[in-house]
């Protein structure tokens, strides 16, 4: 054998060209094009990961939600924070506000079949069927018998969902739900094509088998790489859909995302289509590119009230009052977030007046609470106190924790230990009560105060995590669910908020914002208070 042809460098380049050509066969057609000024109404977007569950009843993450929300359509859809009719052309509510009767409009699935009331009933019951292990069935619990069926204590027949005929869907509720028409705009309430779902349980994992009823059809899906949404000409409101094609790349790295935007490879950056990294915020602000809007979400520090130290209300108040929220959002998070002096965000009607329930960075008051708390705990000075602050690994959470740690150490003289863990481990800790102070966030799926207050209605609620409960609070929340007068309902919820802020099992920190940048050719691309974008209403010049 002869090995004397080591002309590797030359071969390297030619071979690599050949290999790459082989390697690129399995992806979608090369749509390399100049990103500026093409006549076709195309929109280039990105999402941060492969959507794990592109199924309306299974999705729990905003990435999947962003795609599902544009491929499917519920009975209603949200426009400017208000529900308007979508797949339903009309609805009636009974006098006791318990029965909603929806009349569906003439509409087709992407495979040409008619959208029927049966599809809706099937999808909702599918989501409630415990065997399907939908991870977010509780949003359907507003419907009569839904919770019992989901917990295996009732049957599907007992659930208040009935397809009267092909175009009439009757829904009976557990109690009057003033935001029910907003719920029906949420993905768990979307229909699925019954025949498809029954024939192929994995219909939602490939573009070929994907059947949807919204303005866009999933035309192609190269896993972990790119998906393409195409406008459906048979969609009932197609004439009002401006964008014909949406290319959605999957890009994890925030730096890469920003470079792509700067390079005009994507037209929009920011939730739910990508993220804006902390370190580019300053630059985007100085270039006057950054758009900020309210998001119905909160960032808070939960106190474990079953912990020896944290069970002390005065200590909790001392900690909460001595957080400099204003300084935090100005210097650390920088996203023009609103310092939170209550639980329910400003984007919820009737909430979030500027007064709040306490004064931000009120060190004097905090010291008083601290002294009282130390006395109750039998401690001589703040230096005898060591508190652990837990958060899940991330640059932003670490920066916030360090800022707060510094404040508490400086203003209260308490020793603060930081403790971070990766996400899945962190959840285990928080849910298992293995923490003292822990960071969490909450964003509403329906823009109502109940979404923020309900989780604390009992210590057993899985989203409470603080071990705190209060009989009066629970009573008020329960009453609010049956109150048909909206002004009185609001009053009860405000009262409840006052109670939880009095006991302070959580320290609200800031209300979240939507941050995004949009290319000049795109119009009306503004996320709503829930951070969703309906591409149907977006235009491209």
């Amino acid at each position: 054998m002869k090995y004397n042809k080591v002309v590797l460098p030359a071969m390297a380049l030619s071979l690599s060209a050949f290999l790459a050509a082989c390697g690129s066969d399995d992806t979608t057609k090369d749509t390399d094009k100049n990103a500026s000024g093409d006549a076709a109404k195309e929109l280039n977007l990105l999402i941060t990961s492969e959507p794990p569950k592109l199924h309306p009843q299974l999705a729990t993450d905003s990435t999947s939600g962003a795609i599902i929300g544009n491929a499917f359509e519920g009975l209603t859809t949200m426009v400017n924070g208000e529900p308007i009719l979508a797949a339903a052309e009309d609805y009636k509510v009974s006098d006791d506000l318990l029965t909603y009767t929806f009349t569906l409009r003439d509409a087709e699935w992407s495979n040409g079949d008619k959208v029927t009331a049966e599809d809706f009933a099937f999808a909702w019951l599918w989501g409630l069927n415990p065997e399907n292990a939908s991870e977010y069935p509780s949003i359907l619990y507003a419907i009569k018998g839904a919770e019992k069926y989901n917990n295996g204590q009732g049957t599907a027949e007992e659930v208040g969902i009935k397809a009267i005929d092909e175009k009439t869907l009757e829904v009976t509720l557990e109690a009057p739900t003033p935001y029910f028409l907003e719920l029906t705009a949420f993905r768990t309430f979307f229909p699925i094509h019954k025949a498809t779902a029954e024939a192929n349980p994995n219909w939602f994992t490939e573009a070929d088998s994907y059947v949807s009823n919204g303005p866009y059809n999933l035309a192609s899906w190269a896993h972990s790489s790119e998906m393409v949404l195409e406008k459906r000409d048979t969609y009932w409101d197609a004439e009002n859909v401006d964008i014909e094609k949406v290319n959605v790349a999957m890009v994890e790295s925030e730096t890469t995302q920003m470079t792509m935007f700067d390079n005009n490879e994507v037209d929009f950056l920011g939730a739910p289509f990508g993220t804006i990294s902390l370190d580019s915020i300053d630059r985007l602000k100085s270039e006057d590119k950054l758009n900020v809007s309210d998001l119905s979400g909160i960032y808070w520090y939960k106190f474990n009230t079953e912990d020896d130290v944290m069970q002390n209300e005065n200590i909790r108040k001392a900690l909460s009052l001595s957080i400099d929220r204003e300084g935090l959002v100005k210097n650390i998070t920088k996203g023009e977030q609103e310092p939170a002096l209550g639980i329910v965000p400003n984007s919820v009607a009737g909430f979030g007046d500027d007064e709040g329930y306490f004064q931000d960075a009120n060190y004097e008051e905090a010291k008083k609470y601290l002294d009282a708390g130390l006395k109750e705990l039998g401690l001589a000075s703040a230096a005898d106190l060591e508190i652990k602050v837990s958060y899940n690994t991330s640059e932003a959470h670490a920066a916030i924790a360090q800022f707060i740690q510094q404040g508490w150490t400086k203003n209260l003289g308490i020793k603060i230990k930081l403790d971070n863990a990766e996400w899945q481990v962190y959840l285990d800790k928080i849910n298992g009560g293995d923490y003292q102070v822990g960071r969490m966030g909450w964003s509403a799926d329906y823009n109502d105060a109940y979404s923020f207050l309900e989780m604390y209605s009992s210590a057993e609620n899985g989203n409470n995590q603080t071990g705190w409960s209060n009989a009066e609070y629970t009573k008020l929340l329960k009453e609010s669910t049956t109150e048909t007068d909206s002004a009185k309902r609001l009053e009860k919820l405000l009262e409840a908020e006052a109670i939880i802020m009095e006991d302070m099992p959580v320290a609200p920190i800031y209300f979240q914002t939507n941050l995004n940048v949009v290319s000049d050719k795109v119009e009306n691309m503004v996320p709503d208070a829930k951070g969703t974008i309906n591409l149907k209403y977006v235009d491209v010049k």
Partner: protein
Amino acid sequence: MLKFIIKRLLYIVLAMYLIITATFFLMQLAPGSPFASERDLPPAIEEQLNAKYGLDNPWYIQYKDYLVDTMTFDFGESMKYTGRSTNDLITESFPVSLALGLQAMILAIGIGILLGVVSALYHNKFPDYAATIIAILGISVPSFILAGLLQYYLSYKMGLFPVSGWKGFSYTILPAFAIAITHAGFIAKLTRSSMLEQNNSDYVKLARAKGLGKWTVVFKHSLRNALLPVVTYLGPLFAGVITGSFVIEQIFAVPGLGRHFVTSITNRDYTVIMGTTVFYSLILLFAVLIVDILYSVIDPRIKLKGAKK
């Protein structure tokens, strides 16, 4: 030779068993559940999910199932990507990593050997210093820094290549380079030192004395012997690059296997952890075996243990 290969295959089986067992128990010990999420999961649903994936069985039953699944190469459905099988994830993403990895490897070998040979031939002269500096830089600059720089200057500033994605040849060049440079540095250092060793040996001196040219001696005589340490490095390198680089795939949005390795662990996606671990181990073990076999081909003096004398 055959005896040697059979023996080595048995070792591979044993090693696989140990790897599989270790992975299983490490997964059992790691805190965190694949189904935990920001929103609380109703207990009934969690039970359903555990039952669906057999996580409600005692550990020894799970272990048995796990071994059986591995034997049959059926790793089940991903716990994160509902409805998608682990085998699908691997068969989809591996070709991408393979193509990118081979490209990177060829680049690394080409650049590395070239630098190493130039270094050795011009020992202690300017080209040697220049090549050594390049090699050292390649080794010491982390690939994600290099990737970022390549992306910024070549894509964004000069517009020569797309920033990220995987839609054709132009998309592969930057990630391949970013992966290759580190390895090229290593190969250059290995080649240089073993070439220098060869250059002092009698047969090279004789060849030079016969009046053969510098490059002729390199290609006809010394390079082949000098490449032996490089070949040693190629096995693990091959296994490493063709299974994808997590960081590079993340930065360039390449839909490869490297990402699944890492994210499956953070997601506690047990089925995918298992699938990718078994897959990667097999590739690594076989790569090492092939390298050992290649040894005897390159250098007839090396006798494989167990081969006929």
